[in-house]
């Protein structure tokens, strides 16, 4: 296949857009956390950029798209370190079926792995050891994200493959499932996966001290809105980029993404106005993300009209779902469950109704709905079990929580040695720590601890 310059340019742009979502998420989450722990919250996203950004090229790509092991994950040693994923035998860049170099596909997919892991951190505000989080990020990406990406997008168990779940339910036609599961850009792989992991970790790690009794209101709503804006912008790469070329399908995904998101924001605000008396900025930012999440699996298979309903339903259900943690008593601090798990389920399942080719409302019968529910439940089960094992193993070894004193005083100072805002009078350079030593090369180096 010849190189398609337009498609390649769009996929490089999309990869860059999706990468921007993780710093955007850091702002979104950081603004919602308390002033004493905003840096830790943001560092969990940035730390994920570091860990997953490295392991993706080592075994992340292999485990997602390498030779399948039973349909559940790719063999990590097939294309380990991208060996054989970049060049063909003649030393030319490999080009995929869309005319896009394989290495550009690696770039695009790596950004999905990073944001998915970072999403989980929203459940863990104020109280988790940074080192444990970094280890979790690598292990969970390896055991949950890469395998589920393989199952859904890499031709595995949750795809339309002959041995897959959908094929088991309604049989096969011409070597593929008769009713193919639809997850355009990651309703199961990204959002259900991250939402379930957040719920399991919140249960293992436990509540923040004072959860439900002490005020834990967002400390900076302008950061939250800036983060939501960057997420929306980056999501065009996420969804329209998931067309894997620059064509009408990408345009449809773009329009559906914006329409559903706009509708979800309005729906969330309406719920707030009726229930609480005010349409809030936090509600607008939250509704935006709920809509983006819900349209993610459906962006390629619903009409813009259908995406209005899909987004609005997601906005209402997510706005109601974020209150559940207080009733059920789990501290999913920044509502990863209420927004990503619920929004991901809404989007994945509603394809069974609103899908223009196979949905119930378009005369497609109930088969697509059944398949969508099946892959959603399978993703919940796989992510839940894997996260439970990892979470408990880390609890027994490294330990998850910082001490209560650190949590109360603020994790930023103790764990990162910084404060986000307080410029305390009386701060000075510790002159006794300014030491001049001769380095091996004979050049003087100065260390200053301020």
């Amino acid at each position, binding site marked *: 296949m010849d190189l398609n310059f337009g498609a390649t340019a769009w996929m490089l742009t999309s990869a860059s857009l999706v990468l921007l979502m993780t710093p955007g998420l850091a702002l979104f989450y950081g603004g919602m956390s308390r002033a004493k722990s905003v840096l830790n919250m943001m560092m969990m996203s940035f730390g994920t950029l570091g860990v997953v950004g490295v392991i993706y090229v080592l075994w992340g790509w292999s485990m997602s798209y390498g030779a399948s092991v039973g349909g559940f994950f790719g063999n990590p040693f097939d294309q380990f370190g991208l060996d054989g994923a970049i060049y063909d035998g003649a030393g030319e860049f490999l080009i995929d079926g869309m005319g896009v170099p394989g290495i550009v596909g690696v770039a695009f997919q790596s950004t999905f792995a990073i944001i998915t892991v970072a999403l989980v951190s929203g459940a863990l505000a104020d109280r988790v050891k940074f080192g444990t989080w970094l280890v979790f990020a690598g292990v969970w990406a390896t055991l949950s994200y890469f395998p589920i990406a393989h199952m859904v997008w890499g031709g595995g168990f949750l795809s339309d493959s002959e041995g897959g779940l959908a094929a088991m339910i309604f049989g096969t036609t011409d070597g593929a499932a008769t009713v193919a599961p639809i997850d355009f850009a990651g309703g199961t792989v990204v959002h259900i996966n991250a939402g379930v992991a957040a719920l399991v970790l919140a249960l293992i790690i436990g509540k923040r001290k004072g959860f439900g009794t002490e005020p834990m*209101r967002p400390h900076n709503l302008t950061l939250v809105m800036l983060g939501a804006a960057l997420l929306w912008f980056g999501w065009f790469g996420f969804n329209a980029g998931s067309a894997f070329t620059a064509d009408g399908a990408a345009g449809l995904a773009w329009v559906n993404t914006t329409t559903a998101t706009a509708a979800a924001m309005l729906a969330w605000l309406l719920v707030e106005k009726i229930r609480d008396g005010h349409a809030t900025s936090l509600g607008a930012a939250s509704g935006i993300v709920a809509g983006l999440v819900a349209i993610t699996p459906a962006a390629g298979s619903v009409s813009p009209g259908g995406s209005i309903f899909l987004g609005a339903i997601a906005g209402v259900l997510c706005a109601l779902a974020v209150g559940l943690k207080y009733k059920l008593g789990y501290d999913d601090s920044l509502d990863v469950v209420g927004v990503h798990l619920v929004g991901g389920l809404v989007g994945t399942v509603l394809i069974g109704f609103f899908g223009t080719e196979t949905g119930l409302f378009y005369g497609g019968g109930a088969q697509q709905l059944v398949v969508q529910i099946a892959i959603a439940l399978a993703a919940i089960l796989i992510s839940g079990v894997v996260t439970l094992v990892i979470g408990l193993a880390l609890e027994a070894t490294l330990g998850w929580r910082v001490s209560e004193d650190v949590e109360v005083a603020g994790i930023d100072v103790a764990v990162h040695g910084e404060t986000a805002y307080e410029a305390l009078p009386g701060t000075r350079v510790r002159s006794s720590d300014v030491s001049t030593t001769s380095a091996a090369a004979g050049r003087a180096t100065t260390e200053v601890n301020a």
Partner: protein
Amino acid sequence: MKLVTAVIQPHRLDDVKAALEAAGVRGMTVSEASGYGRQRGHTEVYRGAEYQVDLIPKVRVEVLVADVDAISVTEAIVKAAQTGKIGDGKVWTVPVEDVARVRTGEHGPDAL
């Protein structure tokens, strides 16, 4: 000498400052404060979780005056700060034993 302290609505500060200048007051200290009186605070809701905000933003104005000026300065502040709504604030006066001007070292009424 007296210290007149006023805790007022932040948006009345400019009028109070102008009224004090018109009354001949040549210096004051203004600081941000928070508190509540009879109006209590207000309620905020974040993702459905309600918070009662008791302490609301106020501005504190402090003026050192000669004994004879204390009442007129108080009245000037009250008149300028008044909106008639609950939450307008309070003004009070306390006696001051001594005042020193740092630049010159003067003491007492000369330092005002």
